[in-house]
């Protein structure tokens, strides 16, 4: 596989770990200071997308599976989370849980279908499945069609913390996203993660070593879908809205873009990419349709000249793992 990753040689391992601790510290400090400087809602949005991109990266960067339909889990988790909070009146933690579990179930089903084919077909299948569920969302009653589910109550977390307070909401998002991020980091560095990387490098060899690669792929797919769902479920509460935008194929493309810009197969890349693209879109919003053109141009430029992405490039310059 010619996927560009910034994996350093074995002897770099010790320094690599220091570099990750340093980067993680910088990130945490930034997240503590940021809400006093930048709009908390902007940060919450960027964090949700960062988690979405990290979840996507788990699949593309570490298993070598290209899903072009991750909006399915992100968007549907958002719908269920919003519906649970609004129509069932669930507390936010249970609303988010409802959305996340929905994404997990969808991930197991869609993953089970998609892993039956490899490579380029896998991407087309995931895209087609996501489009199918987009059309379902468009027609289903509970999703509100074109209007979406609006005015979703944020409620009280554990019945105590009022999430209508923007800083409380921010803290909630930060805790959820960092916890999920840590989980992904642990997955990548677990024996399970090593098997995933082996499948990425050479699936046939992994099979010949006795690994049931289909099971590993399915579990990785389900994990990725679940975490993408977590991101979508939280985002629905942040914006108090679940809409068709989040299940549309353009959203699937956007998460590819974020991960690609930040760096495929890097740990911090998707986060950097997500913050950058969300900021860019906020900044460019008045330009209307040009956003599409600019996004497309970034895709093309990244593939032609910048395949390692920002963090991947940085890591290879500094010869560390990030």
């Amino acid at each position, binding site marked *: 596989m010619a996927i560009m990753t910034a994996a350093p040689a074995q002897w770099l391992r010790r320094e690599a770990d220091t570099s990750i601790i340093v980067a993680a510290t910088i990130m945490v400090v930034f997240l503590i200071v940021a809400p006093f400087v930048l709009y908390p809602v902007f940060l919450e949005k960027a964090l949700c997308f960062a988690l979405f991109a990290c979840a996507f990266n788990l699949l593309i960067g570490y298993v070598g599976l290209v899903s072009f339909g991750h909006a399915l889990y992100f968007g549907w988790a958002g719908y269920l989370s919003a519906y649970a909070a609004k129509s069932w009146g669930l507390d936010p933690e249970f609303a988010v849980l409802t959305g996340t579990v929905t994404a997990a179930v969808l991930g197991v089903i869609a993953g089970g*279908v998609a892993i039956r084919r490899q490579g380029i077909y896998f991407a087309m299948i995931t895209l087609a499945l996501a489009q199918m569920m987009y059309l379902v969302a468009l027609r289903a009653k509970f999703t509100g069609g074109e209007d979406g589910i609006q005015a979703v109550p944020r409620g009280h977390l554990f019945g105590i913390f009022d999430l209508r307070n923007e800083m409380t909401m921010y803290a909630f998002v930060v805790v959820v996203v960092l916890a999920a991020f840590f989980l992904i980091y642990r997955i990548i560095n677990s024996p399970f993660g090593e098997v995933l990387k082996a499948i990425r490098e050479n699936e046939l060899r992994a099979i010949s070593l006795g690994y049931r690669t289909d099971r590993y792929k399915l579990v990785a797919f389900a994990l990725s879908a679940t975490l993408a769902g977590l991101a979508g479920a939280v985002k629905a509460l942040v914006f108090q809205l679940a809409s068709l935008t989040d299940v549309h194929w353009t959203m699937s493309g956007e998460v590819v873009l974020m991960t690609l810009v930040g760096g495929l197969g890097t740990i911090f890349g998707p986060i950097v990419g997500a913050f950058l693209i969300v900021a860019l879109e906020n900044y460019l919003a008045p330009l209307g349709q040009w956003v599409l053109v600019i996004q497309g141009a970034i895709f093309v430029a990244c593939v032609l000249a910048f395949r390692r992405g920002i963090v991947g490039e940085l890591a290879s310059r500094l010869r560390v793992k990030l």
Partner: protein
Amino acid sequence: MFEILGVPSQALFGQLLLGLINGSFYALLSLGLAVIFGMLNIINFTHGAQYMMGAFVAFMLLQYLGINYWAALVIVPIIVGALGAVIERLFLKPIQRLDHLYGLILTFGLALIIEGLFRNYYGSTGQPYAIPDELQGGHNLGFMFLPNYRAWVIVFSLVICFATWFAIERTRLGSYLRAATENPTLVRAFGINVPRMVTLTYGFGVGLAALAGVMAAPIYNVSPQMGSDIIIVVFAVVVIGGMGSIMGAILTGFALGIVEGLTKVFFPEASNTVIFAIMIVVLLVRPAGLFGRSA
């Protein structure tokens, strides 16, 4: 008029006709995708945008230069195909040795650029394109009314599909192409200019998409998102048929169009998801696709 299974014949055959029309577009587009995939080993995500460009260039030729449908049928595939050849040289050639996924991402980016540009200038509402005078009106067949233009689209797409099949499977040029698909290095050693063949193949596949776009212009409105709407369905068609066989792509395209049309009659709610549902069933039963060789 009479009824079949409780459905008026007019409605049944009307939808069947519409299904055949959609089927001809699916066939033309998946044919192009298959030809390009065979030679370049990439999935051309820009295919939908190039189909849309076909419709738009036909519209622009008529609007600004007064060039009619019949001339557009010839000129548009050449213009859009030539643009495709330029895209191949500028963007796809440099990445041909990389993983498949980069080709997919790159062509996805190009599709966004093209769609964005057209949306910018023409908005997202559709532009009308009149049916050419010669094909106005239709015939009453007794059990249904057959508009002339629709009959033309089906017949002409069938002709184009089989001409393409013949060119690839039965001519000398086609045999070069198939040989280069199997083993480009060896074919090059025989003195055939494979890189030029790759460029021309891409241009040809794109030209097919543009031709489908011209034919679609009078049926659907000419709109910037017409490409992205159809391309995902065509991907599902390609997954169902498998890209190994030209004839397979043609048959699958037409068959799925008919199935979609019938679904519209009997279960209207499921009509736009039925192809995806069939894709799931095919993947569970025959993962390699109906005409595919297992990977």
